């Protein structure tokens, strides 16, 4: 066991401050220390993407980062993307288009997709399949995930246009 570090994070708009061993993986910080259980664990080796969160504006697999490396970071998890009163268009689209089955990959998928659509608001099917390739799903075969992301993109673009 090594010496504990003083860590500050901002998670979903909330400031957090605590002492932690530097070796603690960020995914455990979120899930066990902060009780944010939306991000899941499917491999702990950066392959599955179930643990995907957004850190300082980038998609990151939270199992691949020590909490020490995240010190001072702004983190968004699925819990910060939308709730019962303000669903994100992606959350609605996944539900409408059957973009999930067991739901285990879903928080990571949706969190990743929010960044994908920020980076590329008009993705082709290929763009989506490539951009989502870091997130594994064992249930859906991806077809309806792709459709959900396309539908959410259209919805978001329409909303943006209407606002302009």
């Amino acid at each position, binding site marked *: 066991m090594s010496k504990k570090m003083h860590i500050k994070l901002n998670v979903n708009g909330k400031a957090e401050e605590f002492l932690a061993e530097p070796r603690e993986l960020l995914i455990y910080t979120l899930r066990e220390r902060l009780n944010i259980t939306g991000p899941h*664990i499917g491999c702990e080796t950066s392959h599955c993407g179930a643990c995907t969160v957004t850190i300082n504006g980038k998609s990151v697999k939270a199992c691949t980062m020590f909490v020490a490396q995240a010190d001072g970071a702004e983190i968004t998890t699925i819990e910060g993307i939308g709730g019962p009163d303000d669903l994100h268009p992606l959350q609605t689209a996944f539900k409408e288009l059957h973009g999930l089955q067991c739901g285990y990959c879903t928080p990571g998928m949706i969190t990743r997709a929010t960044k994908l659509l920020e980076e590329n608001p008009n993705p082709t099917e290929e763009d989506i399949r490539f951009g989502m390739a870091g997130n594994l799903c064992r249930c859906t075969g991806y077809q309806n995930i792709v459709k959900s992301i396309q539908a959410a993109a259209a919805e978001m673009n329409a909303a943006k246009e209407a606002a302009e």
Partner: protein
Amino acid sequence: MKDDVTREERVDNLKGLGCSRKRVEDARFTQGKGNYVDDIKLDGMLFGDFVRSPYAHARIKSIDASAALEVPGVLAVLTADDLRPLGLHWMPTLAGDKQMVLADGKVLFQGQEVAFVVAEDRYAAADGIELVEVDYEELPVIVDPFASLKSDVILREDLVAEDGSIPAGAHGPRKHPNHIFTWEAGDKDPTAEVIANADVVVTESMYYHRTHPCPLETCGCVASMDKVNGKLTLWGTFQAPHAIRTVVSLISGIEEHNIRVISPDIGGGFGNKVGAYPGYVCSVVASIVTGKPVKWIEDRMDNLMTTAFARDYHMTGKISATKEGKITGLQCHVTADHGGFDACADPTKFPAGFMNICTGSYDIPTAYLEVDGVYTNKAPGGVSYRCSFRVTEAVYFIERMIEVLAIELDMDAAELRRINFIKKEQFPYTAALGWEYDSGDYHTAWDKALEAVDYEGLRAEQAQRVEDFKAGKTRSLMGIGLSFFTEIVGAGPVKNCDILGLGMFDSCEIRIHPTGSAIARLGTISQGQGHATTFAQILASEIGLSADSITIEEGDTDTAPYGLGTYGSRSTPVAGAATAMAGRKIRAKAQMIAAYLLEVHDDDVEFDVDRFVVKGAPERFKTMKEIAFAAYNQAIPGLEPGLEAVSYYDPPNMTYPFGAYICVMDIDVDTGVPEIRRFYALDDCGTRINPMIIEGQVHGGLTEALAVALGQEIAYDDMGNVKTGTLMDFFLPTAWEVPNYETDYTVTPSPHHPIGAKGVGESPHVGGVPCFSNAVQDAFRPFGNRHTNMPHDHWRIWQTANKLGLHG
């Protein structure tokens, strides 16, 4: 009463059978509010994890945990010696064998559980594991089942008598210390005779490699022994919570009413979560010892290396036919690698599952099957990975045999299938290996599929491609994969299907609330199949209340009626039937209440969508909502108050979904990379409950089939080391590799199921694997390929091309 909605609107409002109702589960999952086992957090909860064997076969000379116990946060280290006084160092398997919970003197596979470290959190447990010293003496390793049957090395000394004789096992006599059973079906001599006298005979050997269901969530549990009240609560990734409760009671001695097993949300199962694993037993013991809740969660490597492999069947077939291609006989021998313990999850009387469905969709008059189970130094398991028991193996076998027979006869493989299909008028059809197929219309499905893809056009294009290839105009070949499968699901009739003596019925209990909403509880458990959505639809159509007003609850043994759980596509065929039957009991009582309220005789009212109407006077009716209220607020002569029902359903037969799949693939001969250009999947699962969910199941099952056919494998080296223990080496397709699938259907309802449904979740996997494999093999057929083994990864495809001399 005034009625301002049309009948059509009333039907729509029900959201019953046949509509693509959106899933009720999704709100919580899309918002990160699912509740999976690793999300459970209890006061004072500890974490347990295993010291695992690095060797595939070794004797354990000593275990020293003293240094581990010095680690801050480590509370206990359990070994077999600690479990022995409780009789828990071994546990029974579902297959009639027994399995070490913690290594008892030796280890039989890499990754085997040796000691259980209990600590305050997972980091402390990991630190403790590092410091447990185990002294191993290596023993010769056997990873090949054929070598195992000839070896002097005895893997299971516990199964050999002191005088060296070999006592019979759970499935009859054993012929070698490493032999588990021989299982037969069909007629041996008559089949041999037919084959000996046939015009045409082909023999082919194929290996259906070892793989793993690998759900995205691994296995795990939380055990909490409440010593004050004497109650044990066990949350876990259980596909069969009631069976787990019974097993825990039998092996721990805790009375069953004092055990509550809860399956929370489950992140995919695919067969991985059917069995009972050492982690469950150790967590329970650790909770009893420490008096605190104990959590155990596998990591991915533990998962791939130890819990629940699938397949590993070495199959040799002989198929005989007339010159015209009419099949006359089929023989199949399987050498089944079961690993170190026989922990296959099959109904008790079926040690090779339903492998005896291997005559497939064809009218084959004579057949014989023999399966030998063998011990090796590999992980135990043998689960049904997204299929009914061993049905993927059976279907792969026959769909490959058909292809090699077509080659031998120089016939088109689609035509060969067509002339051998069981005909519509032959159903119910008794196959040579014993099953009675309930219903089918294979020719219609096949013709629809071939037409949909323009099969003739594809064959012409393929022939042109071969010409172009030979002329040096292209380096790409085209494969057309065909597969026609018949599944056998819905285990099953109690007369021949049980697990540990528990009949494989299932159940549903319904309570209607006074205001006309309801809760129904079932003995099954969803792992993503959407039961909360679809079972409510079945019920809505049966009892006339909107699916939106019906809560479905599963997975808590304190509240749900006893059932055998969800696997083998049994939920819809068995629990779905129980749901309909319980619904009909509700309706029968509702009819009496309606008749009383309408002041007519019971027989003078009839059910119509959401109400009972007086026959011939449709303006006189009582809605189900009104009837529900009356059940609670009126004293009706001769009737008890309330509106509840329960049904335990013992199916009279299995159901037999079928389908026709066609895959078009382009293969780069120089890189071995296959590109799936088109995949057409026609499924007939009988009555369709929710088309959206059916399609989702087909997409998912096909993707798991793609994985298995094109790369996914649990591979061992000669020392018994697992070579594919992480997602780096174990192939799970990403969105990038997966095509869009075209889905289609025909509807041939099951004649014996109350609503005619047959189950669909596993069909695409069963039918998909041979379809992808056949596509690869078909591409090389013009160059002399007959059979190559899966998985067809790029390297193996390249090797096939190379062997056929296609690299110049």
